[in-house]
C-alpha cells in the first residue's frame, strides 16, 4: 500500500518539474513570452474562453460530428467484417481490395472527399466514418475467424438458425476482437475529426477550427487551451474504450478470447 502511494507521487515529479520550468522561464523573461506564454495567461485565457462559450460550442460540434461518423463507420465495419469472416467466397472477392485500400493512409482520402462533398459536414462525417470503418472491420473479421469449428458444431447440434448463429454464437465469440477494434476506431475517429477540421478550414464549427483560428490570429493561449481540450477528450475516449473493452473481456470470462 505504501509502495503504491510512493509510485503515484513519483509519477507527478516530471510534469510538476516541467510546469515549474515553464513558469520560471516566462517569469524570468528568458524566452519570448509571445511564443511561450506564461502558464498564468493560459489559465486566464482558458477561463475566459471556456466561460465565453465558443470553445465549448466548438467542442460540442466536434463531438457530435465524431459520434455521427464513428457510428456510421463502426456499423459498416461490423457488417463488412462479419461478411468477410463468415463467407469464404466474400473474403476471396472483397478481401484483397479491402486490405489494399486499407494501405492508403487515412488523410490521403481527405482532398478527394472534400472536393466531392465540399467542406461541409458531409465530407467530414464521411471521413470520420472511414477512419472508424477499418479498425472495426478488421477486428470483427479477426474475431469471427477465431470462432472454432467446435463452437460451430455445438451451434449446429443445438439447431441454431443462421441468424441465431450470428447473434448468439459468432458475435459474442468475436466480442473481444470487436471491442478492440472499436477501441482503436474510437481513437482514430477522434484523430480524424480533429485532422479534418485542421485541414478543411477555419470557418466551420469545431474545436479544431477554434485552434486553427487561434493559430491564424496568433493567440498562443487559445492554441494551448484548445490542444489541452483535444488531448483531454482523446484521453477520456481512450479510458472509456479501454474500460469497455475490459468489461467485454471480463464478461467473456478468463481463458476465452483470441486463444491467448
Amino acid at each position: 500500500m505504501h509502495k503504491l502511494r510512493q509510485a503515484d507521487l513519483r509519477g507527478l515529479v516530471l510534469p510538476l518539474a516541467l510546469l515549474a520550468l515553464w513558469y520560471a522561464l516566462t517569469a524570468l523573461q528568458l524566452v519570448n513570452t509571445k511564443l511561450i506564454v506564461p502558464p498564468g495567461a493560459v489559465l486566464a485565457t482558458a477561463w475566459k474562453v471556456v466561460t465565453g462559450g465558443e470553445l465549448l460550442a466548438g467542442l460540442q460540434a466536434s463531438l457530435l460530428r465524431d459520434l455521427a461518423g464513428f457510428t456510421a463507420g463502426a456499423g459498416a465495419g461490423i457488417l463488412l467484417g462479419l461478411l468477410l469472416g463468415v463467407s469464404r467466397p466474400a473474403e476471396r472477392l472483397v478481401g484483397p481490395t479491402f486490405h489494399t485500400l486499407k494501405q492508403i493512409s487515412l488523410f490521403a482520402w481527405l482532398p478527394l472527399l472534400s472536393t466531392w462533398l465540399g467542406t461541409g459536414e458531409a465530407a467530414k462525417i464521411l471521413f470520420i466514418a472511414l477512419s472508424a470503418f477499418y479498425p472495426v472491420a478488421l477486428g470483427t473479421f479477426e474475431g469471427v475467424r477465431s470462432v472454432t469449428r467446435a463452437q460451430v458444431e455445438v451451434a449446429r447440434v443445438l439447431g441454431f438458425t443462421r441468424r441465431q448463429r450470428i447473434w448468439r454464437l459468432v458475435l459474442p465469440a468475436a466480442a473481444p476482437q470487436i471491442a478492440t477494434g472499436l477501441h482503436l476506431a474510437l481513437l482514430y475517429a477522434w484523430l480524424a475529426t480533429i485532422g479534418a477540421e485542421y485541414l478543411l478550414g477555419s470557418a466551420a464549427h469545431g474545436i479544431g477550427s477554434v485552434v486553427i483560428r487561434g493559430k491564424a490570429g496568433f493567440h498562443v493561449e487559445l492554441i494551448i487551451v484548445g490542444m489541452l481540450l483535444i488531448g483531454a477528450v482523446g484521453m477520456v475516449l481512450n479510458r472509456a474504450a479501454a474500460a469497455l473493452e475490459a468489461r467485454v473481456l471480463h464478461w467473456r470470462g478468463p481463458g476465452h478470447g483470441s486463444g491467448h
Partner: protein
Amino acid sequence: MTLARFKPFAALLGLAAAATLALALPSAAQAQDKPKIIRISYSGAGTGGRPITGGTIISTAHQQGVLEKEFARDGIKIQWTFNPGAGPATNEQLANGLADFAHHGDLPIIIGRSTGLRTKILFSYTRFGSSYITGPIDSQAKSLEDLKGKRLAVFKGTASQLALGRILKKHGLTERDFKTVSMDGDTLRAAIATKDVDAGFIAPFDLQARGVGKLIYETGPDPDLTSQGVFWVSEDFERKYPDIVQRVVTTLIKVAAWSSDERNREAQYKLWANSGTSYYEYQKTFADTPLKWRLSPLLDDYFVDNLKKSIVQAKEFKLIRRDVDVNGWLAPQYLNAALKELKLEGYWPEFNAAGKPKLAQK
C-alpha cells in the same frame, strides 16, 4: 403461400415507386421563370474565415444588402458563400453546380474554363492594383533575386499565383527558382510574423503596422502585371433566367458607380474594414489610382487583351493543360444594358490594350 414471401419485396417496390414519383413531381413543376434562390460565391473570406469581405464592389454590395432588397419583392433569396479556399474552392462549387454567380480571379476561372466549366463573364471588378512581396521584419532581401532558393509563399491556384508568375517572368525567374509554399491570406500573414517563410505574396501594410513585416518588392499599378477579376454567371443560370441576370448586373453596376465615386472613398473603406483587414491597409493599397480606374467594371479592350494574355501565361507557367477559347465567354450585353439604363455610359473610362485611357479622362 409462396406469394406471401414477396410481400415485403412488393412493399419495397411500392415505396420506391412513390419516392420516384415524389421526386419527379417538383422537377415537373420547376419549369418556372424564377429561381427560388440565387447563389453567389465569393472567392475569398474575411480574416478568420468570417463571411464579410472588402476590396471589391461585390463586397460593398453584399454589405449594403442591395441584392437582397432588389429581389425581396420577388421572394427570391440570396445565398452568399464566402470561400476561404478562394478561387479553387469556387471552381469546385461550380463543378458541383452549387454556384450561380461568382466573384472570381482571372487564374482560377481560366483554370475552370480549361477543364470545361461553363460560365459567362458579366463584368470585371478590379485592375491596376499593385502587387506586393512582403517579408519578415528582419528580412535582408532587397529584391526578388535575393530570395532565390528561399521559401516564398503564395496562394496557389488563385489570381495571386498568376500575378506572381508575371512578376517573376519579368525578372527572368520562375516559381522553380524558389521553394514555393501554398498558403491562404491568414496563414501567410501569421507565417511572416513568425518568420516561417522568407517572403509572401501579400500586402505589407497591416504587418508593417504591427511591426512584423517589411516590404521587399512592389510593382505599382503596372497594367502589364496587374491582376483582374471577373464576375460571372453560370451558363445554365443565364440560359434559364436572363432577366434575373440583367437585374443582378444592373443592381451591382449601381453599386459600382457608388463605389467609384471619390466622395465615397472613406465610407467604403469603413465598410471594407469590417472584413478584418484594416482601414489603413485599404487606404494604402487603393491610394495610387483613381477609384474609377481601379473598380471599373468595363469589358473594354484592355480587359479582353489582358484576359487573352493571361491565358497564354497560364499555359506557359503550366497552370493549365488545355487551351482556353475566349469566344463566347463574355456576355457584355448585360453590362451594356445596365450602363444604358443607369445612364452611366462613359462614366468609366475605356482603356486600350496597352492600359492607357482611350479618351481624355472625364
